[in-house]
């Protein structure tokens, strides 16, 4: 569903563009220039082949004229085949056809390679940039948009390169056509000078009319798809409330809008196609009539007339390529702008060069931490303020708070996915900003709220390329209670999970994400509500095993965001967060006895039940 979301802005841009088509076309040519610059050699090759194609197309007509005047007519007049000219003509026909074929193959292949190379290179650029840009940047851009930047937008920029070599060949063809016409007969050339520009102009008008209509139809297609996705996803609701007929009406309305838009596109085509097809034929008729006068007056040979007439039939189709190029330009510019926005973003988060010394659990110190998405001076709302606390080596600290209290932000700051606005985070006394990226990742592991699995094997999903043997992987899987289900998979550790691991249940996915963190033997483990999809007893077993490790000094220091009371109770210390501040801290028992707000929070469910009992 996310893939059709970006289609709306793109059509908006196109609509805005059609208000200023000239500017858009000019910028389109600039984009063309950049692409040509990047693939100079291959593009030149494509153009050379295309020129060959264009000139051979004109030559085809010339050969016919030559054959008419030098082979067919003399032979018919004399009643016998003259000399070797027949063989020359036959040879010419075949040679021109072969060269033209070489031109077509070379043009299409080299043009295709240019396009695919440009797309591949930009895709590399965009994904590299994604990997460089800080997480805060990622968080402020919708996923669907970023995916479309790397896929559809990149293709949109360069797809104009598919017809471009042909269009350039056609230009050469037109020049060649007019030249051969001039050689044959200047008056007949006038017909060409009317017909070719007319073909050209009509094509452009056609693209201008059709472009926005097709973009509109495309966005309506997105609507149809979105409704189908949503309605089938929500089937249980639709069914249990008996809304099938209403849903069908909703879908039908979208399907009908799409139908009408497509019919509109078809109408335009039905008007333009026959005109474009008739135009060369009209040219031929004009040439015949004018030609008859010219031949009568002795100014032209019949072969000239035949040649020029034939030119119209061979040139008519290729001329459309110019229209295709001009039609693609606005799309190209829109794609370019969207991709540029990503590539030109200068947000960055430099890493330091230090690594942590020693081994075993580390001490986490958070000092006067403050964070807001927008600078406070610009009216930003503080997400966290004046946060200070310590997590002693080998201890477990739980973070508790209502939605929006800043718990997830805290986990991002502690693991340095994001930098604070004020204050510091340090590990064993070293500011996390001084640590190298590798050094940080080697010491700290975050298990985020939503699990992400790679389209890869179970093993790779746990190790993520780290040098870890299978025993260590199984050890980690054992701790997270995943040993049983993984060994039951068809190929064990080698089982491919498929895209995003959709073949696994939510709980299984979370367990793999936990194993991923544990297998690296982190010195600080941060879990952001990372066990929410697990059965409570499974969660308990995992946390017990973890706490045991931590207690005997082999495990990491732990910072855990939690809701369930049993989880919270495992912690040595609890931090109670409200509106971005610590409002209570201490062991669970103590807090529970002391703070009414804390009691409300963690007892909410039990409290609800008690109230019911009293009703």
């Amino acid at each position, binding site marked *: 569903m996310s893939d059709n979301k970006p289609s709306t802005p793109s059509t908006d841009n196109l609509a805005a563009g059609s208000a200023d088509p000239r500017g858009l076309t000019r910028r389109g040519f600039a984009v063309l220039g950049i692409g040509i610059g990047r693939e100079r050699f291959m593009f030149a090759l494509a153009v050379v082949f295309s020129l060959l194609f264009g000139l051979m197309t004109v030559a*085809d007509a010339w050969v016919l004229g030559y054959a008419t005047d030098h082979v*067919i007519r003399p032979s018919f007049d004399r009643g016998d085949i003259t000399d070797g000219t027949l063989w020359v*003509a*036959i040879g010419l026909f075949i040679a021109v*056809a*072969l060269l*033209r074929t070489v031109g077509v*193959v070379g043009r*299409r*292949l080299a043009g*295709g390679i240019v396009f*695919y190379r440009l797309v591949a290179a930009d*895709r590399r650029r965009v*994904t590299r940039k*994604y*990997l460089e840009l800080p997480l805060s940047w*990622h968080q402020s851009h919708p996923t669907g948009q970023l*995916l479309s930047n790397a*896929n559809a937008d990149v293709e949109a920029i360069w797809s104009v390169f598919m017809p471009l070599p042909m269009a350039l060949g056609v230009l050469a063809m037109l020049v060649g056509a007019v030249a051969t016409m001039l050689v044959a007969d200047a008056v007949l050339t006038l017909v060409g000078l009317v017909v070719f520009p007319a073909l050209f102009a009509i094509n452009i008008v056609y693209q201008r009319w059709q472009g926005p209509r097709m973009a509109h139809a495309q966005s309506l297609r997105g609507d149809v*798809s979105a409704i*189908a*996705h949503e*309605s*089938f996803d929500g089937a*249980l*609701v639709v*069914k*249990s409330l008996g809304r099938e007929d209403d849903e069908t009406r909703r*879908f039908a309305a979208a399907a009908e809008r799409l*139908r009408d838009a*497509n*019919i509109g*596109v*078809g109408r335009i085509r039905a008007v333009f196609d026959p005109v474009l097809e008739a135009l060369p*034929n009209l040219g*031929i*008729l004009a040439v015949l009539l004018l030609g*008859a006068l010219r031949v009568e007056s002795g100014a032209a040979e019949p072969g000239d007339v*035949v040649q020029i*007439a*034939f030119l119209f039939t061979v040139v008519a189709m290729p001329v459309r390529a110019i229209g295709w190029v001009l039609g693609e330009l606005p799309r190209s510019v829109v794609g370019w702008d969207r991709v540029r926005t990503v590539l030109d973003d200068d947000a960055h988060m430099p890493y330091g060069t230090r690594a942590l010394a020693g081994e075993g659990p580390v001490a986490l110190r958070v000092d006067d931490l403050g964070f807001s998405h927008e600078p406070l001076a610009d009216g930003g709302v503080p997400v966290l303020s004046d946060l200070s606390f310590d997590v002693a080596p080998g201890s477990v600290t739980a973070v508790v708070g*209502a939605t929006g209290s800043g718990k997830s932000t805290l986990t991002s700051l502690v693991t340095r*996915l994001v930098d604070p606005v004020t204050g510091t985070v340090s590990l064993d006394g070293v500011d996390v900003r001084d640590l190298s990226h590798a050094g*940080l*990742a080697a010491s700290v592991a975050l298990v*985020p709220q939503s699990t*992400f699995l790679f*389209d890869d094997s179970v093993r790779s999903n746990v190790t993520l390329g780290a040098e870890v043997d299978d025993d260590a992987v199984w050890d980690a899987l054992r701790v997270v209670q995943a040993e049983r289900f993984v060994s039951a998979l068809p190929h064990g550790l080698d089982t491919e999970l498929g*895209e995003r691991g959709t073949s696994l249940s939510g709980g299984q996915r979370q367990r793999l994400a936990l194993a991923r963190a544990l297998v*690296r033997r982190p010195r600080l483990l941060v879990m952001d509500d990372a066990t*929410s*999809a697990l059965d409570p007893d499974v969660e308990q077993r995992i946390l017990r095993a973890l706490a045991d490790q931590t207690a005997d000094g082999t495990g990491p220091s732990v910072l855990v965001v939690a809701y369930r009371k049993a989880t919270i*109770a495992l912690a040595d210390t609890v931090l109670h967060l409200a509106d971005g501040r610590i409002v209570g801290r201490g062991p*669970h*028992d103590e807090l*529970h006895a002391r703070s009414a707000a804390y009691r409300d929070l*963690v007892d909410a*469910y039990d*409290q609800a039940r008690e109230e019911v*009992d009293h009703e």
Partner: protein
Amino acid sequence: MSDTDALDGVLPVPEEIEREGSLAIIRRGLSLSPAITQGIWLTAVLSALGTVGSAVVPIVVQRAIDDGLGGSETGSGAVDVGRIGMYVGVTLVVLLLTGIAASLSKVRIFTASERGLAELRVRAFRHVHDLSMLTQNTQRRGSLVSRVTSDVDQISQFLQFTGLIMIVSVGQMIVATIVMAFLSWQLTIVVLASFVPLVLLLSTFAERMSRAYDRVRATVGELLAVVGEPVVGASVVRSYAIEERTQRRIDDAIDTNYRANVRAQTIVSVTFASATVVAGIANAAVLGVGLWLGLLGDLSLGTVIAFIFLVGLFVGPAQMATQVITDAQNAVASWRRVIELLETPADVVDPGPGGERLADGDLGARFRHVTFRYPDGPVVLDDVDVTIAPRQRVAVVGETGSGKTTFAKLLTRLMDPVEGAVLLGRDDEWTDVSRAPFDDLRRHVVMVPQEGFLFDATLRENLLYGRSDATDAELVAVFDDLALTDWFRALPHGLDARVGQRGEALSAGERQIVALVRSALADPDFLVLDEATSAVDPQTELRATRALERLLDGRTSVTIAHRLSTAENADRVLVFDAGRLVEDGSHRELVALGGTYARLHASWVAQQKLAPGAVGAGSAGGGAVGGSGS
């Protein structure tokens, strides 16, 4: 893309469809969308007239040359301009008429195919909602979506573009062949013979091309997956410092995709160009043979030249032929998938107005020796026999796979039992749910699914799913009834608040709240709830729990309980194990019984006790039995 890949084996395909040939599929497809073929004869005639135009021009060229422009019969120099002018005039009229015919035929083709396909789309959409599979197998939803979207688009693309090209081309070739046959049958054979090798090679080309494109599609799927990794998995990539590894995976996928594309492009280019060579050979052959025939006195100069013009009419179609074949194959495959969908019988059928309406007022339920299993699957529910009295509050307990969800789905008739019957009613008035018309059944029995699924619309529109004719005042009243007024008042846009895709603008707990209000609006006599498992914000949970209590008040309810506290609150607990109903009684009775339930409860209590100092934790819940009743 992945949707299409996952299509195979989604539906139990009747064998005859699988075996049917392409023509039969097209015939069936057309009969399913009568609008496409409506008035098709007129369209065909117009279309045929439209193709005449391009074939007329070579004839005029021939006549003009033979009758004046230096033709052999009149001798060079004697040009009859008047006659040529007449030819040109007549041809202009013919071109105008055929142009109009071609235009009209295109409008008709677009209109008819779009109308037919829109109907097909809507019909397929409705049919999907009638399949119980939709609620049973969530993983296959994507492929069902593709049948009402990309599959239909594929058919439309074929009918309007390649199909149209094919019709026009074939028409053009037929007309050209007829014209040629009139001019010279010998040269006609020469031209057709030149194209024979190409025709013979077409199927091989098409096969290679479709294989190359399959490969491209597969690599696109992989590419999309890995390109998503740095975006969707940004925090994992960053916190594990695996940027390089991720980039390597992306680069590999980009390379693989690039190679597949270039390979496909090579095949397409060669195929496309082969027609150009053939045209050259045909022209040379026409020249040689034509000249020879001409000298024998059978042929005029104009005819030879007209033939070379006519050969041009074959080049375009020959260039497009492989593309047309590939597209046609894809379109037939899509059509086959849509037909499969439509011919999968709706397994849970609405008895319609002819059914038995349920009695108004309190409603109970009775399972009479109900057994359920999926086709070719193990037994999911085994001989369940139980009666639920009106206004009873029942909790269903059991491990994953015990059959408790199936029990709920049978109760709401999302599925039908394989053996036995599910009845609704009270005392001596019982109605088999499969006899109750859908509109009546849904009015009386409503299921509240686990996740509060919301539609990407306003809060109001979402609530109206519960009852479409409710006024704003009624909506607000329901918030009051469920003690949710404070939550509702805090919404900045009130009923006009947009909830986002799947309701993502709201938190999980808030979505549950909206789902409860939506169900309350439907005002059913009987509620079936699938309790949410995911942890939500405690304060919202408290609110939702209160609302739920009010919603259940005075109604019969069956709750699939994932928390044992829910069971403690129920009037009655049904315990399922491996598809059988193993225990049935109140919480207290079942704890005393010391069976499955007692074991489940003991482990739950132990877990709650891990929380020291927890006031009113699970162990203290014994006194909660009875709930609110009425």
